[in-house]
């Protein structure tokens, strides 16, 4: 931690001085760590200087040698950052086991298994009849395939090499692997913005930012795992294109964007923030041909590629999320045209033309905009999807779509969660923003825009904290790197000042006046610099010959930024302390807070570790001891897990695409036994699964989620009314609970025979109360399985009761005739 930013300092200097470097014999060690992004040829150029350095220690080492060792050092640091990013996410494997976590990852895992087993074409055409019974779900057309294809590809490559890893293992370790990639992408992005030192700092920060760890621990096989890498990499390529104006990078950028579209619905963030940045550049008069090359191919190629992804399809041009990109696309062309015309016309003529075009153009624009607004306004959601709308209007979901509001990760975050998830970065970000303003370049303005937008989005949905994390890391990396730059330079100045005082003072006085000029030049210098990113041998040689000259300038530049040495040392110490605090917090978060797989729970008690493996117990029981085609009804949270682990058909699952279907299950759970039995029977349900935490105190059980079931059910079926389940607006299950509540199926299935466990009290450890209704029997359901700690209870629907003997004779003939038609399932 201490070393990396320390070497960041000199690197930035080199940047500013156009590849120049400063060196002092007394600071040989530090300088050896200098690095630049220029790939150099170590053998040919370093041979002689190396010998010189070894024979004569007083002679200044060659800059080429320093580039070489710096590059190698940077390479190894990056390698170590990759290892760090990977290994910090293995706490879940070490503390628990190598297993898929939570809910959505189980779906992704199942899709991956299908992909590997049946191949890509069957995957696109996959109609899954194991879920959303009886509707089914078109998986190939409704899933973001990026993650699945990535893991599937990795598995294929491994099996081509005869490495016998299971699909599960590949899936478990996909997220940590891509975290390492994301750290490297952060390095590249930040390097484009503020140089390699800031890049390394940002990379190491991102490697262990808790917010990202929470979504990418080993086993958390979710879209975000690869999407964050894709997001950062797309931004990097955008900045790279912006800095170089290379069409090659622009094409790569489109492909990276395509990968992002494949991976995550959050790609709309990219396709909105890049147009915003382009617009910002145009408005602030920073339009250039590089900007055009960075943007126009992205929109054209990117949109075409995005439309290839089945889940996006025509949405890439139809929905309002993409609207901004097309608008800016038009604007950039208008601006480009204006610049072009300005170039060929005399200023006077241009003025005339401008007034003409503006007046006509305004009228046309108004007309077009009016039509567009009319079209957009005619759609009920204004062309936005529910989740996007709730981003623009944070109260939207809770007002209109309870199903989005019911998900905890769609809630706005609390203040402590910022501290938890990005920790000290929250304090470093403002410093980073300031650093980005001096001087402001295209790249740094993008980073500023990125942080501003992501701060807003993370404030709306806690889930989008994940988008904030890379931005915070980049800016904190810049801030830390700049800080270290200043501190180490001050100390260096002090150290060198004692020996070469005279020389420095002379040089310093002379060059102080040139400083401001240099700063202005910097931006263009950098452009040239990056243009020569991969220069030919000749160019490299020339560059290296030129190195001597600017190094003189670099010495002079540092003079005004020097702090008193004791202040610098103290500040350095404090910064390192801050970094150390961040590391400790991150490791703690990775080890304690975010590594629990949630399907297996552990508690520490006085007599050792207790493992609650009830979920898998129930799923294993279902998979081995029920018929393959039996349907299992549960609240949608457990849908993915049931299909993946128990391989049984479910009614609803975590892909909440059909609100009515979920409301039906919600209604059944909220209804009395008989009504619920009828609903379930009409859905051909054989087993009902409920999660109950009352015995062991597992708080996120179905009773605590019950109000959402009532709400969602009542949203579609108005006979379910939320107030019926509340006593004076209070949700309770004790003796004061409403009769509707106590007679609901969920209550009965949860507490059936619960009272016998503790000798007639029926004390619920989650709600911390005695239950209201203790002794009751089930008439339409039969308990078939309850796990060891009662966390999962499975009930079977009893078959329809036989007629009473006296009546049978009369009805038998009738019911046989009518029975066949009545019993017939409408779905068959």
């Amino acid at each position, binding site marked *: 931690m201490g070393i990396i930013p320390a070497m960041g300092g000199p690197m930035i200097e080199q940047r500013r001085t156009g590849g120049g470097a400063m060196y002092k014999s007394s600071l040989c060690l530090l300088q050896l760590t200098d690095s630049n992004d220029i790939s150099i040829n170590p053998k040919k150029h370093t041979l002689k200087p190396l010998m010189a350095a070894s024979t004569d220690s007083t002679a200044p080492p060659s800059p080429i040698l320093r580039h070489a060792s710096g590059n190698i050092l940077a390479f190894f640091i990056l390698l170590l950052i990759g290892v760090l990013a990977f290994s910090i996410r293995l706490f879940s494997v070490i503390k628990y086991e190598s*297993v898929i976590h939570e809910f959505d990852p189980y779906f992704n895992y199942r899709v991956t298994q299908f992909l590997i087993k049946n191949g890509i074409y069957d995957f696109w055409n996959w109609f899954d009849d194991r879920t959303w019974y009886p509707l089914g779900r078109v998986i190939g057309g409704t899933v973001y395939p990026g993650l699945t294809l990535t893991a599937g590809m990795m598995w294929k490559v491994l099996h081509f090499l005869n490495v016998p890893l299971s699909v599960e293992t590949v899936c478990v370790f996909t997220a940590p692997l891509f975290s390492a990639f994301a750290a490297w992408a952060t390095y590249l992005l930040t390097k484009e913005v503020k140089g390699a030192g800031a890049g390394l700092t940002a990379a190491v920060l991102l490697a262990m930012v808790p917010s990202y760890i929470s979504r990418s621990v080993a086993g958390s096989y979710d879209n975000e795992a690869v999407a964050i890498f894709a997001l950062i990499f797309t931004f990097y390529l955008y900045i790279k294109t912006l800095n170089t104006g290379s069409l090659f990078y622009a094409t790569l950028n489109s492909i990276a964007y395509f990968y992002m579209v494949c991976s995550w619905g959050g790609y709309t963030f990219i396709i909105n923030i890049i147009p915003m940045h382009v617009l910002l550049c145009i408005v602030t008069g920073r339009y250039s041909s590089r900007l055009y090359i960075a943007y126009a191919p992205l929109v054209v190629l990117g949109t075409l590629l995005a439309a290839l992804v089945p889940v996006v399809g025509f949405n890439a041009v139809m929905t309002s999320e993409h609207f901004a990109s097309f608008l800016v696309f038009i604007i950039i062309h208008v601006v480009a045209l204006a610049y072009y015309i300005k170039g060929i016309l005399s200023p006077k003529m241009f003025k005339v033309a401008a007034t003409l075009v503006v007046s006509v153009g305004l009228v046309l624009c108004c007309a077009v905009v009016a039509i567009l607004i009319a079209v957009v306004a005619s759609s009920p959601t204004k062309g936005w999807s529910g989740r996007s709308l709730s981003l623009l209007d944070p109260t939207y979901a809770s007002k209109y779509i309870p199903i989005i509001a019911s998900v905890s990760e769609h809630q706005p975050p609390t203040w402590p969660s910022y501290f938890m998830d990005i920790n000290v970065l929250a304090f470093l970000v403002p410093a980073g923003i300031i650093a980005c303003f001096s001087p402001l370049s295209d790249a740094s303005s993008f980073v500023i825009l990125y942080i501003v937008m992501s701060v807003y989005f993370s404030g709306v949905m806690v889930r989008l904290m994940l988008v904030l994390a890379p931005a915070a890391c980049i800016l904190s990396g810049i801030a830390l790197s700049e800080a270290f730059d200043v501190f180490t330079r001050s100390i260096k100045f002090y150290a060198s000042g004692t020996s070469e005082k005279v020389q420095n003072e002379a040089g310093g006085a002379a060059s102080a006046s040139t400083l401001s000029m240099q700063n202005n030049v910097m931006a263009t210098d950098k452009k040239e610099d990056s243009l020569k990113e991969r220069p*030919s041998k000749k160019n490299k040689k020339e560059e290296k010959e030129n190195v001597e000259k600017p190094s003189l300038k670099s010495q002079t530049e540092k003079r005004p930024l020097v702090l008193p040495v004791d202040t610098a040392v103290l500040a350095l110490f404090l910064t390192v302390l801050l970094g150390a605090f961040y590391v400790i917090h991150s490791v703690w978060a990775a080890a304690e807070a975010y590594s629990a797989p949630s399907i297996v729970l552990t508690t520490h008690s006085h007599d050792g570790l207790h*493992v609650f*493996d009830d979920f898998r117990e129930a799923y294993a029981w279902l998979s081995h001891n029920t018929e393959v085609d039996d349907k299992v009804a549960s609240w949608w949270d457990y849908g993915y897990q049931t299909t993946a682990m128990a391989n049984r058909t479910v009614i609803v699952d975590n892909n909440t695409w059909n609100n009515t279907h979920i409301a039906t299950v919600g209604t059944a759970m909220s209804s009395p036994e008989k009504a619920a039995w009828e609903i379930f029977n009409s859905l051909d349900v054989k087993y009902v699964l409920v999660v109950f935490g009352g015995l062991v105190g597992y708080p996120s059980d179905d009773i605590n989620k019950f109000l959402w079931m009532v709400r969602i059910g009542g949203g579609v079926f108005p006979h379910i009314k939320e107030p019926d389940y509340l006593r004076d607006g209070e949700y309770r299950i004790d003796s004061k609970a409403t009769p509707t509540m106590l007679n609901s199926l969920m209550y009965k299935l949860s507490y059936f025979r619960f009272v016998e466990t503790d000798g007639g009290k029926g004390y619920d450890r989650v709600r911390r109360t005695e239950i209201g209704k203790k002794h009751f029997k089930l008439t339409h359901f039969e308990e078939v399985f*309850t796990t060891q700690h009662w966390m999962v209870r499975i009930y079977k629907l009893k078959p329809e009761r036989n007629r009473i003997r006296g009546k049978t004779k009369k009805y038998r003939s009738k019911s046989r005739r009518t029975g066949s038609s009545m019993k017939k399932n409408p779905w068959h």
Partner: protein
Amino acid sequence: MFRRLGSILLLLREKTKVNMEVFEARSRSTLILSILVLLSLSFRSSSSLSSSPSELQILSAERRIDLASHIIRVVLNLKVQNDGESPASNVLLAFPPSQVKHLSLIQASELAGKKKKKSLQPLDVKPSDHADGPNGAKFFSISLRNPLSTGGSVSIEVSYILTQSLEPFPVEISQSEPQLVLYRDGALILSPYAIKQQTTVIRTPTTKVESFTRVEPSTQMRTELKYGPYQDQPPFSYAPILVHFENNNPFAVVEELVREIEISHWGYLQITEHYKLVHNGARHKGGFSRVEYQSRPSISGVSSFKHLLARLPPRVHSVYYRDNIGNISTSHLRTSYSKSELEIEPRYPLLGGWKATFVIGYVLPLQDFLFESDDGKRYLNFSFGCPIAETVVNKITNKVVLPEGSKNPFAVVPFSVERHAETSYSYLDIVGRPVVVLEKENVVPEHNSLFQVYYDFHPMFMLAEPLMLTSVFFFLFVAAVAYLHMDISIRK
């Protein structure tokens, strides 16, 4: 009735005159019956009993049937005398066809020496190529060490194991009911020889015997049912009996067990065992109430089982126990100098008819199991059967994965198995590893004897993969160096 039948059958089928003379005297029963039997018979046989059974007779026979678990172990003590004129080298054992199907293992040994200095000499037992006996009775022949001279006698101890011969009745039970099973056998020992005196003792796991067929003299003494002694029974005498008793021992049956034994010459032996376990007792009926199961374990779900005990070799390490959805967190491993015991709990208690699948894997040091034979071959010496105690394995597949580059593998197994060869690929293999596959059906713990797999292996093959990796990286670096030295830019 059966006795007569048997003798008539034999009479009709055998062509040897001696037989006819002997049997004719005894079979003066109705002719009609013999014709009926004649019709029901299939004349499949062409050969006749070579060593005439009549030459031998069994002086005394004692059979002990142990019904304590679901694996039925029978010990049969025979004293055989040669009454014929020529020495006899084989003794035949007869089994009814219903038992042959479930016969898992049969062993015989000769009792030598006097009472105090008894010693057991193992004898060779194999299915006889003789024609089937009456009613499809199958024969096994025991080869005596020394042919039995005329007038001489020998004591033979036969032990055999029957699996899946306990039939639950009632077929379905609820959680609160005990498990009752039926056992069918004969009160008389089925034998092609006349038996002078015989007794049969059946041991039941508890005193709770619902009913048993009485064939006088028969008595019940606590957990033992004693049939006999019966005197002078002719060959193929048969008297069916039915014992209905309570047996709550775990009926743990592994439907399929695949064991992969992977040899690595880097010093370890990796074993992976895939189990498909089922509770093969009376099927569970109705709901499963956890509260009853937890609060009244003595009367609720008594026939279910929660634990299984696997006996692994000593010095076992890296043990894992999981199924296809992750680790199963309930297991205990106890290691000691002489053995390791792995106590595993399936995810849920297994009630009748419930199934579970799981995988057990462990690593053993290679030097305990791999040896070099005198002719330079290497051989693996490993146990064949399922390490879990008191389980029946319907089908076991032992796959011995030899290291890449091994040649001429062949297996030596003390009993008959089905064998074939495969090739598997793992960890950067190019030519693949030879796999010796040994399959056997109906396996009991007594099959846990050692088998050997011999093969040729040159140690150079051990270095193949490290060298391959090294060279790949070497060429990667060379390529990187070459790339840095080349100017592939189109800009001049």
